[in-house]
């Protein structure tokens, strides 16, 4: 009792828990409740109840409202869907000139807009793709097929791989020096020799379109948000939701609007990649010292000059970090958008995984990771590069890289020409190594996987069974056993205790949305998987982070490892786990753990590092031991930052759980995946995505509120 008086908060938390458990025990599981049937499925069953709202009929299994809330929002997905279809097919029909048939045709406005957008994106992608791989679409777009027939010289081939490889090495050299150049050359050569050139270039062309477009839109919106409070306020909730929205979920509505293919993938990628760009632009512009802005004004800048000559160049570093983020998101999306028919490595990866050909998947995954790391390092080098002064260089010094590239182009063409003489019949390997003619290690890997299975099958199986039967199943059952009302009380109570009435209301709203959607049970499963992943990840991440922090070299090494792991597109993580654990929940969870451990480790190290050096010295001079310092000084001060790490860990874990649906889970992700192939899936996919985003936002809100208070309390920022 003494202790409760001393810590009133502790008492409040205990009280909350008591209420929660009391509710759990007081409310029995209804006899008719079965998880598999869930609460609301779109099947007809005489046992279902139904209601009609906005003309949409919602059917569901009714339970005691304390146990499961009725899906009052069940009409939402149907309504979204119908609205989308209405927009696309019936809204605002207008006359549009049709180039092919040479006549006016009536088409709904939105359909026409999306089709034009689609054509534009396709054109951009084709343009770059044809520079890299050859093709005629772009030239035909400006002329005609007849013109090509008349002028056969216009059938230009793509660039030989040697030129692209050397060109990227030169660019890497210019940005990041010798080491990066060697890496660029080696990875490009690897890609070519191992026969992944064509899909790699398809992926690259996709990224070279998506990334700059995302950059332009992100920068523009960031600037607009910086200049106008109203724009910022309007953007803020969208940015927040987009940060926790699983990328899968965006695919579905985009499918309806833009159809299937690379162009749709580019548009979705932009939707996902623009928010971080906006945030970083805003961050960078805000960090420009006010006196620099005043200096610009006093120099007589008008608004445009102030933005383009003072603000943006001064915020250059943050903006380029944003570019880096954009590129990373693009790679991640390059794989995921293979679901809606984007060509390239992602598509091959998906195909190989579907056929359980781990070897092939590994090769594709490796290539994608190599390119991702290359572009990541290049963009970071660009961001950190100080501007050079060129005023007193002569023409040759200023243009040596371009000149050198010119030489490389000529050499490459000559090489390809000699190649065409040397490799008389068959393929010109100096021009392009065809997809199935390179060296392939797939067989080796597949044998390796077989060997692992043969040798360790017993152990893996035993581990698998133990994990599923003794840990995961009970945990899942516990989560599903929670009555809806008890969960609501717990979450809202936590919100109130942490952030007061405001936080409680926000959290309550988010939770209610999920509870009233038809997928509460599935959301519980998603949460259970994410919680399990987060718990293990945090345990590993905090331990590894703390240990690595003790030594400068191990600290830097670990941060680098985190950097590289973070560069891998999320999908790639599924390959090794499928290799080891096959198609089980264990695979998904291990992928979740590996993926989510990255931010946990990184934020632990960064948090510990941010403890001021003065405090270190002061503590040492007070004669503390290493452990005392760690527990009395470093942990308490680093804790807020570490909690931000927890926040990130939760987001990462949720992403991976959703992606894990590809392997086969029973949660929200599975439904998103199903929605992809459903004619009426758009509304379902979007609503599911919002549900996942809201799970993330509940934790986000609680953690952030707590961290802000804690930071204020500690006086750090």
């Amino acid at each position, binding site marked *: 009792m003494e202790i409760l008086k001393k810590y009133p908060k502790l008492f409040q938390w205990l009280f909350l828990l008591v209420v929660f458990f009391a509710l759990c025990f007081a409310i029995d599981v209804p006899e008719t409740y079965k998880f598999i049937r869930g609460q609301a499925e779109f099947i007809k069953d005489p046992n279902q109840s139904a209601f009609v709202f906005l003309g949409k009929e919602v059917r569901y299994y009714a339970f005691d409202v304390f146990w499961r809330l009725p899906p009052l929002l069940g009409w939402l997905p149907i309504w979204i869907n119908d609205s989308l279809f209405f927009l696309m097919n019936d809204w605002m029909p207008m006359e549009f000139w049709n180039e092919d048939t040479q006549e006016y045709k009536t088409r709904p406005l939105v359909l026409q807009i999306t089709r034009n957008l689609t054509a534009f994106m396709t054109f951009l992608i084709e343009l770059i793709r044809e520079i890299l791989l050859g093709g005629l679409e772009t030239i035909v777009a400006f002329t005609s097929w007849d013109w090509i027939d008349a002028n056969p010289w216009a059938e230009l081939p793509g660039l030989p791989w040697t030129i692209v490889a050397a060109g990227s090495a030169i660019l890497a050299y210019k940005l990041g020096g010798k080491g990066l150049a060697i890496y660029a050359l080696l990875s490009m050569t690897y890609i070519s020799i191992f026969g992944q050139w064509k899909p790699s270039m398809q992926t690259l062309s996709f990224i070279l379109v998506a990334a700059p477009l995302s950059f332009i839109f992100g920068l523009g919106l960031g600037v607009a948000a910086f200049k106008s409070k109203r724009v910022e306020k309007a953007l803020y909730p969208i940015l927040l939701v987009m940060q926790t929205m699983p990328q899968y979920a965006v695919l579905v509505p985009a499918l309806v609007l833009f159809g299937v293919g690379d162009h749709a993938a580019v548009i979705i990628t932009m939707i996902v990649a623009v928010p971080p760009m906006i945030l970083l632009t805003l961050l960078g512009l805000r960090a420009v*010292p006010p006196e620099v802005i005043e*200096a610009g004004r*006093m120099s*007589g*800048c*008008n608004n445009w000059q102030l933005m383009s000559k003072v603000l943006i*160049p001064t915020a250059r570093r943050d903006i380029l970090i944003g570019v880096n983020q954009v590129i990373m998101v693009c790679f991640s999306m390059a794989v995921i958008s293979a679901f809606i028919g984007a060509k390239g490595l992602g598509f091959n990866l998906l195909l190989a995984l579907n056929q359980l050909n781990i070897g092939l998947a590994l090769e594709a995954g490796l290539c994608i990771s190599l390119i991702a790391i290359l572009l990541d390092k290049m963009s970071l080098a660009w961001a950190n590069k*100080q501007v050079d002064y060129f*005023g007193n260089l002569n023409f040759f010094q200023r243009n040596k890289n371009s000149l050198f590239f010119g030489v490389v182009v000529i050499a490459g063409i000559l090489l390809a020409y000699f190649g065409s003489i040397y490799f008389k019949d068959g393929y010109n390997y100096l021009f392009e190594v065809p997809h199935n003619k390179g060296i392939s290690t797939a067989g080796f890997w597949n044998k390796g996987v077989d060997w692992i299975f043969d040798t360790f099958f017993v152990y893996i199986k035993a581990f698998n069974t133990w994990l599923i039967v003794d840990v995961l199943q009970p945990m899942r059952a516990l989560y599903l056993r929670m009555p809806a009302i008890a969960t609501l009380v717990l979450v809202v109570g936590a919100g109130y205790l942490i952030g007061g009435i405001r936080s409680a209301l926000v959290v309550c709203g988010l939770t209610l949305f999920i509870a009233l959607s038809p997928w509460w049970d599935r959301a519980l499963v998603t949460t259970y998987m994410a919680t399990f992943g987060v718990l293990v990840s945090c345990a590993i991440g905090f331990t590894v982070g703390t240990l690595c922090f003790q030594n400068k070299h191990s600290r830097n090494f670990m941060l680098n490892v985190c950097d590289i792991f973070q560069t891998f597109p999320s999908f790639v993580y599924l390959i090794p786990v499928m290799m080891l654990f096959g198609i089980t929940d264990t695979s998904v969870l291990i992928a979740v753990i590996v993926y989510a451990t990255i931010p946990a480790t990184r934020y632990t190290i960064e948090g510990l590092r941010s403890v001021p050096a003065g405090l270190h010295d002061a503590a040492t001079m007070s004669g503390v031991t290493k452990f005392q310092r760690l527990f009395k000084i470093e942990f308490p001060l680093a804790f807020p930052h570490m909690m931000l790490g927890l926040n990130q860990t939760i987001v990462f874990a949720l992403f991976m759980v959703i992606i894990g649906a590809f392997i086969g889970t029973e949660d929200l992700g599975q439904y998103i995946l199903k929605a992809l192939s459903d004619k009426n899936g758009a509304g379902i996919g979007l609503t599911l995505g919002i549900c996942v985003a809201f799970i993330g936002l509940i934790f986000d809100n609680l953690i952030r509120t707590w961290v802000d208070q804690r930071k204020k309390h500690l006086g750090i920022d």
Partner: protein
Amino acid sequence: MSEPVIKCQSVYKIFGANAERMLKEANGNVDAKTFQENGCIVGVNNASFEVSKGEMLVVMGLSGSGKSTLLRCISRLTDATGGKIFIEGQDLLNLNNKELIDLRRNKMGMVFQSFALLPHKTVLENIAFPLQIKGIKTEDSINKAMDMVKLVGLDGRENYFPRELSGGQQQRVGIARSLAVEPDIWFLDEPFSALDPLIRKEMQDEFLRLQEKLQKTIMFITHDFDEALKLADRIAIMKDGIIEQLDTPANIVLKPATEYVRKFTEEVPREKVLLIQDVMDEKTSSDIGDLKVSKDEIIENVAEKILTQEKTVAVTDSKNNVVGSINPAKIINTVFGGRKNNN
């Protein structure tokens, strides 16, 4: 006398949502406390003064006294809430955006405490920046900027980036940039506050040298009273947004208008501030020795000479006419006396 270059008539700057309405209701009687209770913060409270051509007005005050806000009202980096400001007869607050930009491009230069250089441009490009903004040809602007580099003694470093320079050098760049468009009016916002004491003194001397050559109309902000005394033609002392006293350094030291000003002057070495004419007797007494001193000398420079005399010393003007006299005892009284009274 010709028109003053800067003229302020009861300028107010009040921060907060209802600032304008509250100012109207206050009817010229602004009380910081009542405003604060209503969520408004008074930055500048009823500032009226004039600065004439070639004059250096130093605005002195502690942090939060509103001196920087006053400067930003006059450069219109913030809009004053009330009052009128005239720059060479133009009503500053009525200028539209284009006219304002025009004024800044041609008439005004400003130096900042944190230097506020553009990190992505070299020294030369930074200095040429206002010229290029103005639309002057690259070659001409670079040439002009190069002259400025020489003026502030940075030749040989024109292709350095700001990050490669020391604080003193960076502020030289800031000064050169503010002078590049040859402005008539020069605003300096605590230009030397971020520098080490030794560098600061060096820069102050350098600044005086420049001003002797350029004869700009200057508003100089500082929180350092010694700096104010060293540089100013006139000093305005601000507290809580109000100008407590605006006068010559000598008058501020000798006749502090308020208790607050007196506290500042307490520790000031008078012999370094006051001129002979400030302490001399207007009458010439009969008992005058051979020594003559000019009335424009600072006491410190001639004190030793005077104190070795037993008789009263004659004071002359620039044409060597005797205009007064000074007794050695008066010197002793000036240097030590004031302080004794205060204890």
